């Protein structure tokens, strides 16, 4: 289904998607579609979520206790599920972010050693 599109978009690694969701929720509760949009915008449409894959990820995070959800009313007056970060999730986000930074620096050094020095 995504054969054509995957050429100019980057498929998300599972752990990355989790991290992006946690990061998105740092600014407050959001429903599924909003999270998907936030991830797309935040990455200049490069990190595309096949939107459906958001849901298994959300549930995975709920199960781990990193996020929680509550029924609420959305901007267009519809009932919707709002996901929000738990304290445990907030801590996890810090851990994951620093891990990610380290990894990104390490990968960057390997790929462009001259620029770094």
């Amino acid at each position: 289904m995504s054969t054509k599109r995957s050429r100019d978009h980057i498929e998300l690694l599972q752990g990355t998607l989790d991290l992006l969701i946690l990061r998105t929720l740092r600014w407050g509760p959001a429903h599924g579609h909003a999270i998907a949009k936030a991830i797309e915008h935040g990455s200049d449409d490069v990190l595309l979520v096949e939107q459906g894959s958001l849901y298994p990820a959300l549930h995975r995070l709920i199960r781990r206790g990193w996020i929680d959800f509550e029924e609420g009313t959305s901007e267009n007056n519809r009932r919707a599920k709002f996901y929000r970060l738990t304290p445990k999730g907030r801590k996890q986000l810090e851990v994951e972010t620093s891990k990610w930074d380290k990894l990104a620096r390490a990968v960057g050094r390997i790929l462009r050693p001259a620029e770094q020095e």
Partner: protein
Amino acid sequence: MRRKQALDGLGQEIRDHIERETQDNIDKGMTPTEARRQAMITFGNVTLTMEHTQAVWGWPALDAIRQDLRYVFRTLCKKPAFALIVILTLGFGIGLNTATFSVVNAALIRPLGFADPDRLVALHERLGPQDAPFSPPDFLDVERDQQSFENVAAYANVPFELSGRSEPIRIDGAKVSAGLFSLLGVSPLLGRDFQSEDDQPGTNVAVLSWGLWQSRYGGDRSIVGQTITLDRRIYTVIGVMPAAFEFPRRGPQANNIPASVWVPIAFTGVERQARANGFNRSVIARLKRGVSLNAARAELEVLARRVNANYPPELQRAGVAVGLSAAPLRDEIVGRMERPLLLLLGAVGLVLLVTCANVATLVLSRAASRTREIAVRTALGASRARLVQLLLTEVTVLSIVGGLVGLAASRLIVGALPRAVAEAIPAGQEFSIDFRVLAFTGGIAIATSLLFALIPLGTVARARTGLALQETSRSTPGRRRHHMQASLVVTTVMLACVLLVGAGLFIRSFSALMATDPGYNPDRVLTASLTLPRVGYSTAASVRSFHHALLTRASALPAVRSAALVTDLPLERYENRVLSAEEAQLAEGVPSTTNLSWVYGPYFQTLGIQLKSGRVFSDVEAIEPRGVVIVNERLARSFWPGQDAVGKRLRWGLNVPDNQNPWLTIIGVVADVADGPLGAEPSVHAYEPFSQLPDNVLNNTPTSFGRQVKLAVRTDADPLALVSAVRAEIGGIDRQLAIESIATMVDRVGETVSPQRFSAMVLGAFATGSLLLAAVGLYGLLVFTVSERAREIAVRLALGAQRTEILRIVIGHGLKLVAFGLLLGLGISYGTGRAIASLLYQTESYDIVTFGTVPIVLLLIGVIACALPAYRASRVEPMGILRSE
């Protein structure tokens, strides 16, 4: 809890999500249709998303299985006929196989239950062409001189009257050498084994079987050291054998009745001396380690010469010579049972094949009808693994239920096994279901169904999904699958044909057997067997007065037309004697021995044995020895062909000068009577009145010879109605006397043919079963063909084809398969018929009746199986079908 909350409303959430995305797209300026399409694409597969999300929460495999199970039950309930047929087919096949395998296993494969059985051999003497058990002096010679064996032991069956405590009963016992149990490697459960000092005449000690100990003495452990009364003599119980111990073993050999009590063989001085006498002690031996059977046989040849040298000179001069032979004990016991059992196994194998072929046909047809469903599921994004799981779930459910039905069926079949059959098979009073066998047959049947269940998946994968979708809706089914189904049906018909011919041959053989003239009339005759114990009947006078009393009382019973006593009824053997005849034509093939019976009362009239010439015994001859004898036609013809034997003379023993036996005058010739089992050649037979059985035989003999007596009564009514009256009369003479058996002559005859009846019955059942399976398979195939070709048929009808023509096409299609299978089947049957020819009685392996009937039956069943689908096809409503496309 958490899971339920989280998953609650997931579908709605996703729908909302897509709607929002659609709205976003419209805001971007897309048309609503395009906006929705793009939203769907961006989202991805909804069903998969839901599945994956649910999977986060649990055991996805289990969840899927539960779903599949629910789905399978729903669909199966919608088509109960399919489910039922598959379950019954599997049940029938698995049940039958397991039951038969268990029986064969018990008889052929299960070990003998003795230590190191491969070193156990049975020894025989050879008299002329025949193997026979040992005569005591010959056994003693071998026992003393042999070097090849660790030990040799003799044994002989002997019936006992067990009295005291409660009702007297007849039990089967055996006299055994003191070393027998240790030779077999089995020690008593309680008490001790026989010691060599027990093996003396007058030492009355006994070892009980576990069964007798339990049933008669309630398993009382203090029985050892107590006394029991056997044949009204006191014996001390010295031991009890373990439950699993059975000896002698059942089988075709002599002395084959498992004993309830064992006593020492204790040869008397007379027995030790009586050369060429009492050839009825079976001998078993254990080879020394490292000594081969052939080496032992070589030694036996040497020993035989030594034994012969010990025979009295006059016997040696008369050409009497014995040989000695040895055979593995296993061959001896299983021996002739092997072929019928292997035949049974072969038949069962065929049934298993039929079962598999049939289940395959059904599952294949079923799967074919699902090709479209599978294509739809694939198109909707079902993964391959998921589809396999779904398809397997259905077959697994059916297989498990089928397997359970099979288990129940095998229990039923084993339980229904006639007692007579159970006894005819060695080692076999206990048949237990062998679960390895169940697993094996069940495994094969189930593996077949699983294999064929997966075939449609292959077709879908090969063809592109879209094609499969189109194909199933429009055109005729896949050619490949069609061929496979057709060949499965042909195979089923072929195998059914082979089984039917086999069963037909056995049934024909059995009816030929039953139709043979036994030379007497068993109808409305009741018989009772008695043995007079030595204590209480120690003199000839007491035996004769018992005979007289019994005959008088029995003859006086109201419904009795005539009654008589005899030492052995037809189908039994009693005495076999060497004879010589006066003025005999000394031609080749003159028999040197004859069966001999002693009778009292109107025996020939009671049994309906025809008098061919001369007269029967007179009342005087019945009570006084007058030197008279009646012979059968075969004997008369052998010695005096073309002459009347009446008035000729014969005597027992060889025609040698010192033969002291008196000459007996033949006063009558009677019809030949089947002495052995039905169908066996009648033997030469002579009859003497009981009065000529010498007093000294009955006085004080250590054997029960002359003490066994059978009462036969002929009645005008149902012979079974006389049972209690006969029992009362016997009890009226001697209240302590146990009756060995009381049965109608018809039942006695029936028992002797039970192996043949069993073969015919079992094969008949197998064949009928496979015939039904073949019919079901054919029916299933045609139903599916018709439903697949509904469109074609509709077009034909719409174009003006007659309904009868449709009928003809469908039936023709089915019968073509039947005919093809039939042709192959008859070809194979000709071969199998030749293979079983030796098991048939007066029936050719190419029996015209069988080979003529089977095709008719199969074609008829074929027509019936085709009829319903064909009728349905001819009733197709063309417009309805065509419009529905």
